[in-house]
C-alpha cells in the first residue's frame, strides 16, 4: 500500500540527491546522513526514502519490521545520533534473549540481511518463519 505523497520536503530531498550526488554519496560513505535544515528534518524517514532509496524502502516495507512498523529511527537513530550500521545492542532492545541460534561471532545482520531480514540463503536456513 503506497502512500501517495510528493510533498515539498520529499521533492527537496530528491532534488538534493540529484543535484548534489557527490556530497550525498560522500556523506553516506562516512556513515552520516546528508545534511538537512531543521525544518527539513521534520519529515518521516520513510517519506523521503520511498523516493530517495526506493529499493531499500520496498524491502523494509515488505519485511516483518515494515509490517510490524519497526521504523528506521529505531535502528538508525535520528539526525544527531544517526548511524548507518546499528549496533547489535540496538537489536537486543527487542531481541536480546532470542534463543541462541547464531554461528559464533557472527553479527545479527550477517544472516538476517537488512532490510528484509530474511536469513541469508547461503546459511541454508530461513529463520523468519519460525523466529519470534
Amino acid at each position, binding site marked *: *500500500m503506497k*502512500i*501517495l*505523497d*510528493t*510533498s*515539498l520536503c520529499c521533492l527537496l530531498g530528491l532534488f538534493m540527491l540529484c543535484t548534489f550526488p557527490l556530497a550525498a554519496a560522500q556523506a553516506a560513505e*562516512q*556513515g*552520516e546522513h546528508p545534511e538537512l535544515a531543521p*525544518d527539513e*528534518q*521534520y*519529515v*518521516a*524517514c520513510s517519506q523521503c526514502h520511498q523516493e530517495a532509496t526506493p529499493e531499500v524502502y520496498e524491502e523494509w516495507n515488505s519485511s*516483518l519490521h515494515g*509490517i*510490524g*512498523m*519497526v*521504523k528506521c*529511527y*529505531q535502528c538508525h*537513530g*535520528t*539526525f*544527531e*545520533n*544517526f*548511524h*548507518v*550500521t*546499528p*549496533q*547489535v*545492542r*540496538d537489536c*537486543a*532492545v*527487542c*531481541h*536480546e*534473549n*532470542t534463543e*541462541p541460534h*547464531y554461528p*559464533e*561471532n557472527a*553479527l545479527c545482520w550477517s544472516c538476517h540481511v537488512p532490510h528484509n531480514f530474511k536469513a541469508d540463503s547461503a546459511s541454508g536456513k530461513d529463520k523468519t*518463519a*519460525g523466529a*519470534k
Partner: protein
Amino acid sequence: MKQSRRDFLKTSAALSAASYIGVQLPGTVTDVLAAEGEAWHRGSCRLCGVGCRVELGVRSGKPFAIRGVAEARTNRGFLCMKGMYFWRCIGHADRLTHPLYRAKKSEAFKRISWDEALDIAAAAFADAVKKHGNDAVAYYGSGQCLTEETYLFQKIMRGGLKTNNVEGNPRLCMASAVGGYLTSFGADEPIGGYSDLDAAHCFFIIGSNTAEAHPVLFRRIMRRKLDHPDTVKVINADPRVSQTSRIADKHLQFKPGSDLSLLNAMARVIVDEKLYDSDFLSNYAVFRQGADSKEVSFADYVKFLEPYTPEAAVKTCGGNISADGIREAARWFATSKGTVSLWCMGINQRKQGVWANNLINNLHILTGQLCKAGADSLSLTGQPNACGGVREAGGLCHILPGHRPVENEKMRTQVEEAWGVPAGRIPAKPGLHTMDLFTAINTGALKAIWINCTSPGQSLPNCDPYIKGMQQDTCFIVCTDIFPTRTTELANLILPAAFHFEKTGVYGCTERRSQLTRKAVNAPGEAKPEVWIGREWAKRLAVKLDDPVIAHCVKGFDKLEEDYALPRAIWEEYTHKLTRGRDNDLRGASYPVLERMADGVQWPSPTEEHALTGGSVKKFVKGQDPLADSLSKDDLPYQFYGPAHADRKLWIWLRPQADPSEVPDAEYPFYLSTGRIIDHWHTMSMTGRVPELLRANPYAHVEINPEDAKELGIQPGDMVEIKSRRGSNILPAKVYEGPMRGMVFAYWHDQEKSRMINRVTKDDYDPGSKEPEFKICAVQIRRVSGPKPIEPFLL
C-alpha cells in the same frame, strides 16, 4: 562451552564498534547490555494498554535505555518505539519541578513551597464544600495513574469529602466496553487474553488500528497469520484502510456508524446457515431486549434479525460491503477452531458504543467462540491502567472499588465497613460523569476540581466551550502532571508529579493482568509521588473541615515512607479489604508475589499459590479460574458468576441499527473521524519531547481519499480547513487510500490550537456509558492554500 547470549552480545559489541561511526549522544539506544555499575530495573511500559514488560537501564542514578523482558507473557521482549523511548521523560529539561500557584487565572504562576501548595489545595476544596456543599468538588483522574493513586484519591473523595464526583479519562475511551461486558457477560473485562492470540484461527479486528495503537499485540497477530497463511484468517472491519489492513484477508469498509447493521447481518448469516452452537446457547445464554432487559426467545431473536439480510446491509453500509463478503466473514467467524475479536475506539467512542460492544459479544455467544483456547471477545484497552486503576479500584462516578455499583446499599456498606467510616458516609447516588462534570464547571456549579495525569483541555470532545469554562475563576483547578499541557495552562495550582520508575505502583492492563513497577530513579526537583501528595492533602482537609473521618481515610498510611512502604500499604488495603470475595479478587497478587513474576498476575487470584502460576488465564472456566470452581452451581465446565447477572447467563442482546449523533448532510457533507498514530501518545506531551518520535510525526495531518481530493482540488501537503458546527482546524493534507470516499481522518496528538482536532469533534455521548462519540461527526472540507512551512508545537 557454548557462549551464552549475553557473552555473545558483549563480544559483538566490541566487533561492531569498529564499524560504528557516529556520535554517541546521551539517550541513544546503543547501551542495552549490562556493564559495570549498571542496573536493570523491571517494570511495565508507561504507554498503551498492552502492558509490555520492560527493564530500565540505570547508570550512576541516570537512565540510559529500555529493553524488553523476554519472559513476559504480554510482550515476549518486544517493544514499540514509544516503549523504547519514554524513559527520555525522566530528567527532561521541561519537567515540572516545583509547585506553582496563581490565585486568578489571568495572573502569572509563582513558585511556592509544598507546604503552601498543600494548604492552598486543602483550603480551596474545604471552602467550596463549606459554601456550596460536598458535590461542589470533584476529582478527575486517569487511566495512566497507578492503581494506588486512583484508589487513594477516590477514598479521600468518597469516604472523606462525601462526594461521588470521582471520574477519569477512561470515561472517554473504555466506558462503552465496560457497559458492553457488564450487559453481555455480567462482568467487566475480557474472559480470555493474549494467549488466545497465539492459538486463534480467525481474527475479527473491528474499529481498531491495532498495528499503530497496540503494536506489540499486532506483532503477535501478524506472526500468527504469517506462520499460518492459509489456515488463519484475518478480517479487518474499518471505514478506513490502515496499517492493520496489511495482514487482512478481508477488509470490510462501511459508512461510519453502520457497523451495527454489519454485525447483525453476520448474526443473520450464522442463524440462517445454522452455524450457531446450540449446546452452548442452551447451556449458557438467554436473549434480552429493551431498556428493561426483557427476556425473549431464540425465535424472537430470529424474527428480530429478519431485516438484517446481507443484501440489506450492503445498502445500509455502503463502502465495499458485499453480501458474499458478509457471508464469508460470518462463516469464517463461526466455523474457525477459535475466533478472537479485537476492537478499540472505533467501537467504544460512539453514541451507540454499548450496543456495538453487545453485538460483537453476541457473535461470540452465538457461536460458542468463548472460554476455549484461541477464542475470545477481546476489548483492547487504550491506556496502561484504565482497567487496573479506574475500572477496578473505583475511579468512575458510579462504581466503588471491586466492581461495586455505588447505588447498591449493600455494596456501599461493605466499602464503608472496610474503610472504618460511618455508615451513610458514601453518597447513594452516582456523581457527575465526565461530560456533566466539565459542563458543571461551565455553569459555575463546580467550584474545585483536581485533575490528575490527564489533559482534558485537549482531550475532551468539542473542547472549546470546556476550555472556556475552565478559564473562569469560578472553579479552582489543581493539576498534578509532569509537563506543561493545554490543561496546566488552565490551572490555579500545578503540582509536579513523579513519573514512571520515579515511584512505585501497579498497572493493570487489557488482559486482567496486574504488574508492578518499582522506583528506580529519583524524581527531579521537588516532584513527588501522587500517593504522598494525596495523603498530605487529606490530612490538611481534615483540619480545615474539622472532620476527623477524612484523616481516618489516610490514617493507616500516615508516616509511611513514600517510595515503597506507602504504595505497598495502599495496595494491600485495596486488594485484601476491597477485592476479597469480588470477581477481581487480587489477594494473591501481593507486592512480594508481583516482584517475583517476570510479568504479573491475572485476576481472579485469591491465593498466593495461584498467583505465582500467573493467575487466571481464562475467567469462568473450571480448572483455570478458582472462582469458577468455588462458585460452581452445576457440572457445566463454564460458570458465569459475574456480579451483574443474577441469572448467571450470557445475554444476547437484540440491538437495532441506530444512527450516529451527527451524520453528513448537504451543508456538512463529510464524515470526520479521528485517532492516534503509532509514534505519539495522546496529547504528545511525552512523546513530543523525544526527537525521534517528534520527527516521525511532527504535527497532525488530515487524511483525504484521493478521489475526494481530486474533486476538491487538494494536493498532498495542501493546507485544508476542516470545519464543523462547533469549530475548525487547518491541517496539511495527506492524500491517502485510507479513509473511504466521503470521510476524512485527522490525528489528534497536536497541541497547536489550529491543529487541535477536538475543537471540531462533537460531545454527544452514549446514553448508557456516557462515553462521547469522538469517532463520528459531520464536517466541511475546503482547500485553503498550497503547502506551507509548519513548525511542530509543544507547550
